[in-house]
């Protein structure tokens, strides 16, 4: 298939693997964080680690939107959805995310009207089709999906749709990366930077990471050769003692990003002073809310929202996984109490979550390693 197979050529992968291996300095190990859940998925789906030398390990970052939503926000969303006359529209990924007393799926079984949509515009259409109900769109995601939420709010306003609002959980990508770098616990050597987010924000915002934290960042596409090439580019920077932002995904991402998308975000949303992240705690100026002039479309203004704060389940180590402190299989409940069927932590829910990706695709690798250690 064109535009896919070119990026999955094993011969090119072997060549890149040799180049990566040649850049490894003897006795040194390298820890690279793939920020985005899409990369985690690619790495496991294609068995990409088979091409990496033992000295290079990939750790999974906080770039899966489902994984970083705290339990309290799930409870708040369920509280809104359970009010009479409310129809909640959400992406399918979120249906199984556990709150304190169950997930959207559980709430739906108890009678809440919760529907899966593929885009916020579908939620707006639902509002037009159900004029007697309040339709609330559960907005989540990084700067990748924030523009489509913004456009939907603008369209709802232009069309005078009064029964539509947004429960805004949009987050931004740079603050959690800085938070991870600032916690001294983890020694990262560089970042495989997210591709889709960067299509919106561009490469420039990562300069702060290269400059202030002296860590190389390579903005990267989602095909397996993209990821391998990014590893090579990071290793080259490390071998040359450089820390710069480079763009591997130039077929999609420009240095300055997408000005139209950034403009609609800025027009409709502003930074919250603080927002709780699953496993990372409160991070200042890391999330977006609707500006006050769009308050009519803000579910947090329209509905009674408990504003629940819920501690993560004690057994769950999603926070350490998201910070790259442990690998998914090192979590004490991984594949035992916590599985994709009955997730305890968010990382086990979405197919882009590090634990779910590892559970689905990667367990063999780990088992082989264990067998080797015996």
């Amino acid at each position, binding site marked *: 298939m064109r535009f896919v197979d070119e990026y999955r050529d094993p011969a090119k992968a072997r060549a890149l693997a040799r180049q990566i291996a040649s850049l490894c300095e003897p006795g040194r190990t390298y820890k690279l964080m793939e920020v985005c859940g899409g990369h985690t998925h690619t790495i496991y789906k294609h068995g990409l680690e088979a091409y990496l030398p033992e000295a290079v390990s990939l750790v999974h970052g906080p770039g899966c939107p489902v994984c970083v939503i705290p339990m309290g926000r799930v409870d708040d969303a369920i509280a809104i959805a359970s009010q009479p006359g409310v129809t909640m529209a959400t992406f399918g990924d979120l249906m199984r995310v556990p709150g304190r007393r169950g997930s959207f799926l559980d709430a739906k079984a108890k009678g809440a009207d919760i529907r899966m949509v593929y885009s916020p515009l579908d939620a707006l259409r639902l509002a037009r089709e159900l004029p007697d109900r309040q339709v609330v769109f559960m907005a989540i995601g990084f700067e990748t999906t924030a523009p489509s939420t913004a456009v939907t709010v603008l369209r709802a306003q232009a069309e005078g749709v009064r029964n539509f609002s947004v429960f805004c959980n949009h987050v931004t990508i740079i603050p959690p990366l800085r938070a991870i770098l600032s916690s001294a616990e983890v020694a990262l050597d560089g970042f495989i930077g997210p591709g889709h987010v960067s299509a919106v924000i561009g490469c420039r915002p990562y300069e702060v990471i290269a400059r202030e934290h002296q860590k190389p960042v390579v903005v990267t596409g989602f095909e397996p050769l993209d990821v391998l090439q990014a590893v090579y580019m990071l290793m080259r920077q490390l071998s040359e003692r450089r820390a710069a932002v480079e763009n591997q995904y130039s077929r999609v991402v420009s240095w300055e990003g997408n000005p139209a998308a950034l403009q609609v975000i800025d027009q409709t949303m502003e930074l919250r002073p603080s927002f709780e992240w699953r496993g990372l705690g409160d991070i200042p100026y890391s999330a977006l809310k609707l500006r006050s002039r769009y308050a009519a479309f803000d579910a947090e203004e329209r509905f009674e929202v408990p504003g629940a704060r819920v501690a993560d389940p004690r057994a769950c180590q999603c926070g350490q996984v998201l910070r790259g402190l442990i690998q998914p299989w090192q979590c004490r409940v991984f594949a035992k109490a916590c599985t994709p*069927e009955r997730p305890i932590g968010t990382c086990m829910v979405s197919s882009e979550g590090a634990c779910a990706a590892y559970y689905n695709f990667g367990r063999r690798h780990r088992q082989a390693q264990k067998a080797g250690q015996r």
Partner: protein
Amino acid sequence: MTSGQAAPAARPTARLEGERVTLAHGSGGKATQALVQAVFVEAFHNPRLDPLEDGAVLEVPETATNGRPRLAYTTDSFVVSPLFFPGGCIGDLAVNGTVNDLAACGAQPLALSASFIIEEGLALADLRRIAQAMAKAARAAGTEVATGDTKVVQRGKADGCFITTSGVGAVHPGARLSIANARPGDRVIVSGPVGDHGATVMLARGELGISAQVASDTAPLNGLVAALLDEAAAGTHALRDPTRGGLATVLNEVAAASGVGVVLDEAAIPVRTAVRGACELLGIDPLYVACEGRMVAVVAPDLADRALAAMRAHPLGAEATVVGEVTAEPAGMVLEKTAFGGTRVVDMLSGDPLPRIC
């Protein structure tokens, strides 16, 4: 009614009025009779159904070996949305689904039952199309709908039409099939490209704004299975039709039941380009997407070539191919050698990415 008795004088049959199914059609009275006669008897027409007894009496054919065939018996419900999609509709799906479940037991169908739960308001023209598709599919499988039932429920209590079919079949005398029978060294054969049906229904819903040249593969596989078993029954250890959950799920069931591993070769698994493209766009793995006209066969290595040749000689198995091998380790797991050169685990799916595809 038994043969030999004179047929009773023809009862005046109420005419089927209107364009839509109403609750009256489910009342059990004249309107029900009119609906059954004008739609179902009209389409299925056969000596066992036509008298509209409470059940059908079947003659079980003798077998060459011992005169007492083993019977296979199965049932399946169909709730697909939309009712009509490229390549088929809920009608042929309902017949082929049950015929293929019998085929996976190594059986040829003797008779089917069909039970309809119809939502008030369904267009009679649609119901006729569905019934006629069922009749055609049954003929293609060499069987018939011998008995059935009809219920009508209020608007909003069902989505157009739900169908449950059951089937009885006579098992091939040489068949010794079980998903627990796979042995290390066995070859895994799939009868054609995977994922056509699921991808078609997903796109036919029109919610995704993607269109592609794909059609459901719904087809009766009893003929293909007969050809396979006539040639290689002794080496055919397991058969399974990869419907919901797709190839990945079926092979996980085999691995778990047989206590073996299965190693797939991604490059060998046939997937149509349009299906692969749609799955790429949607982030869905074609290994988990349903087929409705494919059979997975686990065959001993010494008979694998003959099994493959027999399948390829049948029109519904022309694209049959070996996609993997059964291994001793890791027991209970399915692995895939990726085309990219890595290895991954192919687990059972949790949660349904595509609800109501059959």
